[in-house]
């Protein structure tokens, strides 16, 4: 399909779209003139500092804020008791027992993870707020903790939420195809006892922050923040605060990275709102790095147990079944959505038709999880990629061949998965060939194995980046939920002096929306991107947002740009109508937009500059012919992707609109004595359909790869048995720096999506491809050296690799092959 589709005439292949123009955002950012949440100041604002629990699980016996409030310069405090009076618990997505979780802005009665906010103090300076926070006396009764998800459902496990009576948040069985049949028909069954996907997140360099103002007169809050999904924050906050969503005005400016980690700051924002009202002054809250690590948005940690794979002798995969045990941490703030999001990519990139997953999610005394770049799909795709390599190595097959044999083929696109998702387009085998060429596979594969103290291995990570959610998938978790589809908004207007102004509903964190939106608008209106002023960030007052507005789940290139295109098309039509009327053309179709003029096609001399169009409609409309007096030159478009609600019974239906492909290949060397892994070559091939700004796409590939490399080798949120986070800062939580990162070779193909007019696909999450590729490479290096080890964890620091080298049988014992 790819070849045919690339030849299809896509409207935006001409003009500015498709070109790597430098970003409009850059000029301010390279001069330190960006505006980030902590940069915003107000007269008389007070600085908020949270008092946090040192215990992972404890009853709060008493909180005494008197000493703190006694200090001059302290404006006031907030405790869980007040919060419980002033607000209702946040809405829960889960069915019972998860539905019974009572989650507030501050801990009420009990703390459930180390670092949980129990009180807040506001003072004249940042330093003073922290001084005062130290004087808040909290009496705790420590309780036993559970940090291992595998123990969370034991009879003697401490219960986090008494209301639930269990640590189970949600469970469900997914079964598609004829799983029994597949296992009956196969030649071999490969069993994998247990695999572990580790806990980490993308740690955006800017932590969460907000400046919150309360207007006593109107009862409205203005929340200037770096939350990346205001639509979700509003849905969570307004009911809890017992107000309408219009009482919450969200404003974002520049955001210092998000990666999903800035979706669930609503509890902290509620605390800010309550204090802004209580103390009648602007509240400034900036989270510190240690606080972020202890309390915000860890990625979903997941165990895969009793994995069974049905394979034929030639390495054809018929299907698999497994248990997935997901660790949600202490609260459900976006969860249990992780329990269904993975189903967008249930077969991975492979043709197996028979899949059964028993999904269980539990709560533990660790920080709450939230979306993290590659959210939930990454964990599942890691499983499918682990399966491929383990099966290949166990059956003595070539991982490359097994992939190619089982990949969904380009000619099968659009491909309907066993659970009704529709993979729009792509050519996986071709991407893999390109990736292998980039690492000079034919030559390198001769080098595998033991070479002067090093173990050399090659790994492949093939993943999908599913973009543009059908929120109807939430009903597969909870049939009562009234969510489905998706939407995004943009407005494009022509102002009185002919200035083109664009507003978006999104809240970008570095994805360059101002630039790509301008590229699309410029092509439609026949101007240059410099002529298009795209406003920075998000503001509820623009009325340029809808229920799902935000920047998350790889969707801007589809939802955002389709909204922009829709609005720009409307404006272009209005300009043509005005021009046709004024220039006395037959019809608007006789008008051409070019170089900032609306011209008569038959007589380019007869041209109206945009400035005149803007002026006439906005300030001189008495001269406007009656038939065009309805023109506003202020066009709003809501893009709604073509979704149906999924079938709740069969858990069947299309859960996302587009599927970008990422195929990575890497070569690593392991120090045989220490277990240290070094990446010596790395290639990433991307296919996200039509690329509006190739340089921005490539930048997203680089970033997603770096996150994967960090997670695979360096980054982990590790807890001790008492529930203390052992990597609560960048000193212990090592993120790759410039010396840790290899140079990356990249390439691309374009398989346009048939499901939107732009042919674009959302991208940027990368599906954790680097984690899969490095795990595969480690196993390949060990196997090539005659060590029958199995890489069973997504995180492989030197000691873990060292142990696999010393005692390969230990990990090998997780796997058995049964002749069926």
């Amino acid at each position, binding site marked *: 399909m790819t070849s045919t589709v690339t030849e299809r005439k896509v409207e935006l292949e001409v003009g500015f779209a498709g070109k790597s123009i430098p970003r409009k955002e850059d000029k301010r950012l390279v001069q330190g003139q960006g505006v980030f949440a902590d940069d915003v100041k107000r007269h008389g604002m007070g600085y908020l500092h949270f008092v946090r629990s040192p*215990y992972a699980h404890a009853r709060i016996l008493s909180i005494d804020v008197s000493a703190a409030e006694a200090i001059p310069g302290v404006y006031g405090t907030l405790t869980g008791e007040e919060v419980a009076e002033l607000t209702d618990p946040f809405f829960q997505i889960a069915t019972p027992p998860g539905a019974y979780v009572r989650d507030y802005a501050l801990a009420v009665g009990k703390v459930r993870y180390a670092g949980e906010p129990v009180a807040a103090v506001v003072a004249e300076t940042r330093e003073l707020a922290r001084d005062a926070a130290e004087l808040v006396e909290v009496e705790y009764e420590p309780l036993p903790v559970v940090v291992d998800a595998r123990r969370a459902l034991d009879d003697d496990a401490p219960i986090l939420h008494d209301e639930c009576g269990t640590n189970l948040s949600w469970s469900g069985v997914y079964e598609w195809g004829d799983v029994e049949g597949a296992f009956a028909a196969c030649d071999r069954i490969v069993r994998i006892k247990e695999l572990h996907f580790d806990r980490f997140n993308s740690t955006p360099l800017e932590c969460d922050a907000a400046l919150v103002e309360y207007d006593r007169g109107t009862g409205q809050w203005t929340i200037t923040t770096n939350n990346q999904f205001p639509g979700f924050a509003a849905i969570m906050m307004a009911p809890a605060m017992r107000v309408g969503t219009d009482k919450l005005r969200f404003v974002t400016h520049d955001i210092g990275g998000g990666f999903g980690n800035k979706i669930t700051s609503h509890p902290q924002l509620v605390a800010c709102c309550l204090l802004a009202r209580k103390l009648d002054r602007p509240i400034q809250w900036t989270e510190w790095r240690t606080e972020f690590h202890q309390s915000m948005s860890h990625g979903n940690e997941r165990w895969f147990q009793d994995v069974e794979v049905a394979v034929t002798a030639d390495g054809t995969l018929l299907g698999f079944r497994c248990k997935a045990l997901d660790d949600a941490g202490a609260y459900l703030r976006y969860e249990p959505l992780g329990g269904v999001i993975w189903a967008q990519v249930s077969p991975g990139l492979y043709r197996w038709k028979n899949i059964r997953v028993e999904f269980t999610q539990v709560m533990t005394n660790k920080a709450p999880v939230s979306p993290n770049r590659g959210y939930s799909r990454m964990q599942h795709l890691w499983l499918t990629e682990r399966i491929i390599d383990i099966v290949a190595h166990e059956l003595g097959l070539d991982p490359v061949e097994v992939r190619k044999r089982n990949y969904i083929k380009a000619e099968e696109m659009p491909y309907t998965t066993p659970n009704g998702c529709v993979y729009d387009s792509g050519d996986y085998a071709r991407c893999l060939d390109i990736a292998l060429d980039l690492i000079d596979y034919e030559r390198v594969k001769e080098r595998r194995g033991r070479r002067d103290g090093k173990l050399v291995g090659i790994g492949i990570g093939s993943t999908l980046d599913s973009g543009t959610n059908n929120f109807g998938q939430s009903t597969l978790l909870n049939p009562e939920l009234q969510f489905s589809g998706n939407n995004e908004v943009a407005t494009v207007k022509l102002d009185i002096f002919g200035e083109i102004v664009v507003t978006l509903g999104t809240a970008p964190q570095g994805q360059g929306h101002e630039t790509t939106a301008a590229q699309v608008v410029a092509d439609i209106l026949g101007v240059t991107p410099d002529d298009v002023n795209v406003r920075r960030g998000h503001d509820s007052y623009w009325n340029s947002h809808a229920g799902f507005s935000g920047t998350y789940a790889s969707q801007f290139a589809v939802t955002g740009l389709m909204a922009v295109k829709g609005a720009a098309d409307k404006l272009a039509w209005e300009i043509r109508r005005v021009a046709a009327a004024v220039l006395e053309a037959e019809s608007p179709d006789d008008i051409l937009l070019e170089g900032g003029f609306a011209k008569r096609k038959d007589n380019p001399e007869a041209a109206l500059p945009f400035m005149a169009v803007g002026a006439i409609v906005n300030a001189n409309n008495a001269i406007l012919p009656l038939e065009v007096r309805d023109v506003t030159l202020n066009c709003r478009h809501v893009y709604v992707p073509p979704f149906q609600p999924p079938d709740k019974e069969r858990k069947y239906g299309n859960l996302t609109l587009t599927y970008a492909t990422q195929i990575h290949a890497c070569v690593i060397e392991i120090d045989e004595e220490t277990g240290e892994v070094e990446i010596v070559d790395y290639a990433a091939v991307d296919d996200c359909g039509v690329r509006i700004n190739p340089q921005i796409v490539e930048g997203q590939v680089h970033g997603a790869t770096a996150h994967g490399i960090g997670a695979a080798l360096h980054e982990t949120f590790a807890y001790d048995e*008492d529930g203390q986070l052992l990597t609560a800062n960048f000193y212990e939580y090592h993120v790759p720096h410039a010396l840790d990162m290899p140079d990356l070779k990249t390439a691309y193909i374009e398989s346009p999506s048939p499901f939107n007019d732009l042919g674009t696909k959302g991208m940027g999450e990368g599906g954790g491809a680097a984690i899969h590729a490095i795990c595969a490479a480690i196993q390949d290096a060990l196997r090539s050296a005659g060590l029958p080890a199995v890489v069973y964890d997504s995180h492989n620091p030197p000691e873990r690799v060292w142990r696999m080298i010393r005692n390969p049988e230990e990990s090998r014992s997780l796997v058995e092959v049964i002749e069926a």
Partner: protein
Amino acid sequence: MKVEGVKSFDAPAQLVWDVLMDPARMAKLLPGVESFEVKDERHWQAQVKVPLGMGGLKLKFNFEQVEERPIEYAKLNAKGQGVGAIVAMETQFHLTPDGDRTSMRWEADVRVAGPIGSMGQRVFQPIVNQQVSNVLSALEAQVAEAKAGR
């Protein structure tokens, strides 16, 4: 984190026991004690400043004598609270007379919460070991003093 060991004293068990049960002497064992107050015979409170090269770590300690079997066994719990650190210690002593000497088997289970807990155990663990050995040598000194009738 568990630390344990055996220490031998050149004194009879009864005397070692008396030292261990004497708050006034216990006070002298702790590193950097700034104030010490006996609440009742089972509960004491101390302000200590654990000497760290970078400036002391101030902690308020509450001690509770949970169990004792004269003259062979005692269990003492301590809970210290300070900025950025909560320290919980469970200490047990087993005394066995051997001749006119006494051998003491001791176990301490130290748990730390708060920012210091996340500062890195590779820093923290050696600090604990060091403080423990300080306490033990101080104890030896106290026993010697008591023996000398001071």
